[in-house]
């Protein structure tokens, strides 16, 4: 497997002796890590984070609905930002691939500027200086940034298609729009898909910036519960509930990118890469296949 390449550049395939030693190290390392985890859990118990009072609020429908409403708002902002970014990315990519120098120049300037600016500066600019409501401000900021990044993804994707493809299409008498929509983009899309999805993960993560401009998203709902004295200020429980959901959502989307990448790699006549591994024991699961 290709996954072992990283290991074998650093060390040889371990023999039975080395494997035994590695297992010993692994056990020791595992124990140390377990010890750290136990220490953290103990600290949490010590400071009373697992008392019933701190967790009881979450058993009420009202609180669950509040969290779900927040999650809904997060996903709404993400959906809007994703669609608009893809659209803006397509427009800007067209601009950068244009034959007119002026158009190309403007598109390049826009893309480079918004890629160099922090998203938060744009969100705050739209929110504070242009005096826009929180949701549109958040979506605008996310769209400008992610759209610019996606424009670069689209452009390199189209450019990466074999030159002969475009030339062949032109020689058949197709004009530029036809060449783009019928020949280059469909082929480029397959190569770009993992990068596009990865960028959407960034957009999903950045929706949480809405928290900073009073958009009532998931994190905001969490903070409202966490700061309530009647619920015994359940900050840590809130973090323990919110983070797995956030991380889970992003991981799900990242997985999609990984799957797309793997699917694409498999389809491009690389089936031969099923080379028998040296020994089952040397496989390193988890070191490969991360984008």
């Amino acid at each position, binding site marked *: 497997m290709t996954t072992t390449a990283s290991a074998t550049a650093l060390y040889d395939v371990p023999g039975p002796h080395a494997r035994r030693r590695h297992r010993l190290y692994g056990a020791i390392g595992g124990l140390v890590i377990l010890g750290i985890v136990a220490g953290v859990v103990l600290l949490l118990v010590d400071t009373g984070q697992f008392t019933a009072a701190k967790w009881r609020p979450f058993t*009420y429908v009202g609180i669950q609905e509040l969290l*779900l409403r927040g999650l809904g708002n997060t996903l709404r902002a993400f959906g809007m930002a994703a669609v608009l970014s893809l659209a803006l990315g397509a427009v800007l990519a067209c601009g950068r691939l244009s034959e007119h120098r002026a158009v190309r120049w403007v598109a390049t300037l826009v893309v480079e500027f918004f890629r160099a600016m922090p998203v938060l500066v744009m969100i705050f600019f739209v*929110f504070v200086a242009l*005096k826009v409501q929180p949701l549109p401000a958040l979506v605008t900021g996310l769209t400008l940034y992610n759209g610019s990044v996606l424009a670069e993804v689209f452009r390199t994707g189209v450019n990466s298609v074999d030159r002969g493809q475009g030339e062949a299409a032109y020689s058949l008498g197709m004009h530029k729009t036809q060449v783009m929509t019928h020949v280059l983009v469909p082929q480029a899309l397959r190569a770009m898909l993992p990068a596009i999805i990865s960028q959407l993960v960034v957009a999903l993560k950045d929706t949480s910036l809405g928290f900073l401009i009073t958009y009532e998203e998931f994190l905001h709902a969490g903070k409202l519960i966490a700061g309530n004295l*009647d619920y015994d200020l359940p*900050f840590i429980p809130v973090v323990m509930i919110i983070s797995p959901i956030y991380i*889970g959502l992003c991981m799900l989307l990242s997985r999609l990118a990984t*799957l797309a990448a793997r699917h694409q790699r498999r389809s491009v006549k690389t089936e031969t890469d099923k080379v028998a591994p040296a020994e089952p024991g040397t496989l390193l699961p988890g070191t490969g296949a991360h984008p």
Partner: protein
Amino acid sequence: MTTRRARSRPRLTAVLFLAALVLPVAACGREGSPPVKGPRPEQLPVYRVATGFQLPGSSVWEAARRRGHLVVGAKEDQPYLGEKDPATGTYSGFDIEIAKMLAASLGFDPKTVVFRTIASANRETALQNGQIDYYVGTYTINDLRKRQVGFAGPYYIAGQSLLIRKDEKGIDGPQDLAGKRVCSAAGSTPLQRLQREYPRARAVAYDTYSICVDNLISLQVDAVTTDDTILMGYAAKAPDVLRVVGRPFSREPYGIGVPRSDTALRLALDDALEQHEKNGDWKKAYDATLGLSGVPAPAPPPVDRYPAAR
């Protein structure tokens, strides 16, 4: 072998994840919301809605009339002042009552007022970009802020004070703070005043007052300092554990924030406030909210009708 396992793993994760999302909602779900301490709805005063009220000079009022209701900015994390019940989404407290009585005078049914949480850092922006019609939420009037927004009122004079544990001996006022750990919100005026005027206190800054209170209860800090109103609210929530001590050592006139250009609205709110102070609504609202902390109602401060800005 490995490829198959790798491929089925995401599906498994997805199923587990969805289950984790749905299960708690489906399995246990007690109706309603967790019990909260706060003003009881039946004790709150009822305000008479003004009929036929007109305010032609105010663009904010005109817009609200067309919309059919007012949108008011408030705090959501200050017990007995402006607090949002996380589960039901309703706001309660003294500031909320002030907002409601003013709405009634402007010809809007207080029940229709839509409250929106605006953090301290975003108050001016929210008023400037029309997110809210006016703002009631421990908003201290000062000249710097008057350059950006208008202020009706003041409707209350607060002052910086100290919140301590009930069993604490030896802290009776800011003069006893030498060597003690005193908590306040990072970047806030109370924190700066503490550091300037009582440099021997060991100032501790956290992001929100609720963390300060949390740390006060768990003995990490010895006192929390900010406006007495906010501290009274916390003391009323946990009367067995916390109390407010000492005489206030600053003067914080709370105003109602309005967009700076809308002088007509500002003066209308001034009139309405004065009227509610005269007819007893103000005191009733205080008694039903902050008064629950045991501190009797002070006399309402005189309204300041300052001239319109250039």
